[in-house]
């Protein structure tokens, strides 16, 4: 699903590369934790996968698309294959739960009939049946993240990138979100999740890629957060 080869990213203002010859492969259907301290390059890596930014060196391919030569007009095609959720949910405050999901379908040019069919399905997927007409501020953090996940799933993407999705949530709620991500993963979606949450990583026992100063410090299957813990 993802192939990184010697990926290097230099920001003009910084002397040290944000990513330094990172090589890694993520297979279809894998669940991978991306860990490491702040500034280790996690966010940079996710940005490169979304083609928000281009690497200084090395090659990246996502879902069979080589990002290096990808023309700008094909970038939307790439992003339709990647779902994305964040720590801060990024919901539209003036739209209901259903409205938020519908907005994503609308901007993709879906027909009203499709939208009426897909929105309830997506909300059922994340366990928000019956809350379609709520506004985001009426929801708990966990529920808001579920809306974000529903929205990230409008294209039924084969890859889901999650950047600290539980960063704003209490442990109990976080477990619920992790259960949801795991369920999505069991459905065949590859999940890459950047996180600081050692409890979750330790409990899940999935593959861990640890970045440190822009390099891969550790890449282990069924691993825990820190070797010393």
């Amino acid at each position, binding site marked *: 699903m993802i192939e990184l080869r010697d990926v290097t990213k230099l920001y003009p203002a910084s002397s040290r590369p944000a990513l330094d010859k990172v090589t890694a492969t993520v297979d279809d259907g894998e669940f991978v934790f991306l860990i490491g301290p702040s500034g280790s390059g996690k966010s940079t890596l996710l940005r490169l996968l*979304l083609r928000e930014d281009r690497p200084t060196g090395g090659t990246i391919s996502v879902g069979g698309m080589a990002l290096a030569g990808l023309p*700008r*007009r094909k*970038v*939307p*095609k*790439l*992003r*339709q*294959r*990647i779902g*994305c959720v964040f720590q801060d949910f*990024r*919901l*539209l*405050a003036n739209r209901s739960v259903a409205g938020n999901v519908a*907005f*994503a379908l*609308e*901007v*993709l*040019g879906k027909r009203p009939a499709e939208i009426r069919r897909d929105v309830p399905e997506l909300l059922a997927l994340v366990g928000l049946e019956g809350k379609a007409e709520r506004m985001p501020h009426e929801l708990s953090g966990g529920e808001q993240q579920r809306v974000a996940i529903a*929205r*990230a799933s*409008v*294209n039924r993407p084969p890859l889901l990138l999650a950047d600290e999705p539980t960063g704003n949530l209490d442990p109990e709620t976080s477990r619920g979100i992790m259960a949801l991500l795991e369920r999505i993963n069991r459905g065949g979606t590859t999940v890459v999740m950047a996180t600081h949450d050692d409890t979750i990583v330790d409990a899940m026992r999935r593959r861990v890629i640890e970045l440190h100063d822009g390099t891969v410090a550790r890449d282990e299957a069924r691993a825990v957060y820190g070797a010393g813990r």
Partner: protein
Amino acid sequence: MRAALLSREVSSGLRRNITMTVAMVLTTAVSLLSVGAGLLIVRTIDDIGALYTDRLEIQVALTQDTSSNDPDCTGPICFRLRNVLESTPGVGEVRFESQQEAYTRFKELFAGQSVADVARPQSLPSTLRVQLTDQAAGPDAVRAAVANQVGVREIIDQRDVVAKLFDFLGGVRNVAFALALVQAVAAVLLISNTVQVSAFTRRTEVGVMRLVGATRWTTQLPFLVEATVAGLIGGALAGVGLLAGKFLVVDDLLGAIAQSNVIPPVQLTDVLLTSALLVPVGGVVAGLTGYVTLRLYVKV
């Protein structure tokens, strides 16, 4: 992108940003109004040129003595001058206007004004009115032929008088265009700024569009349409302003002299055509500004 979504996004964008939108519309309107006024002045200058070229004469005013003593141009001085003028190349008809005729015309011209009452026939010169067949070389030829001749008091080229009017109108036109240019810069900057603010206030929406893989076109279109709509409204307001200017100002101030055929009236069709032109110009300029702004400053 579906029309319903587009119109919703555009109207919410314009409303959310209402003060900026109003400023953008007004600046665009004033700028286009200046452009339109300038274009109409150019048109009027052309019309005046056409109106006068055939009518302009050179007037050879005769001295007091000759004027008083020779009421029908049969005396030697006037007769000789007339012959000289008629044989000058570039000259067509030469017409004699006696003191009495000048007085009659003067009374008509200044009817109702006190100057008409104090004027006496003796105080006006009789003139030889020279029509030209060669507008370019004629005036100089006439001057060369009769300047400083006995019986000639003054040579008046009507062209000089009209030239002053042209200079004045040309100045007004230049001011209008200069104002239009300054206003246009302000309008373009405001449009650019409004698009940036609009994109910023909607960064979450734009972010969602980008992440789910909406096309660049879908993401940009609401902003472009917003700018274009504001530009079109600005153009329409400018058109209304031009029409109002014609009916409330120009017709009022210049109506009387336009009727007496001194200057051509500002035609309604010209005003309508210019107004109609301003609307698409406003839309296109605003749309292009929006597009360039999105390209340069906004990641959408």
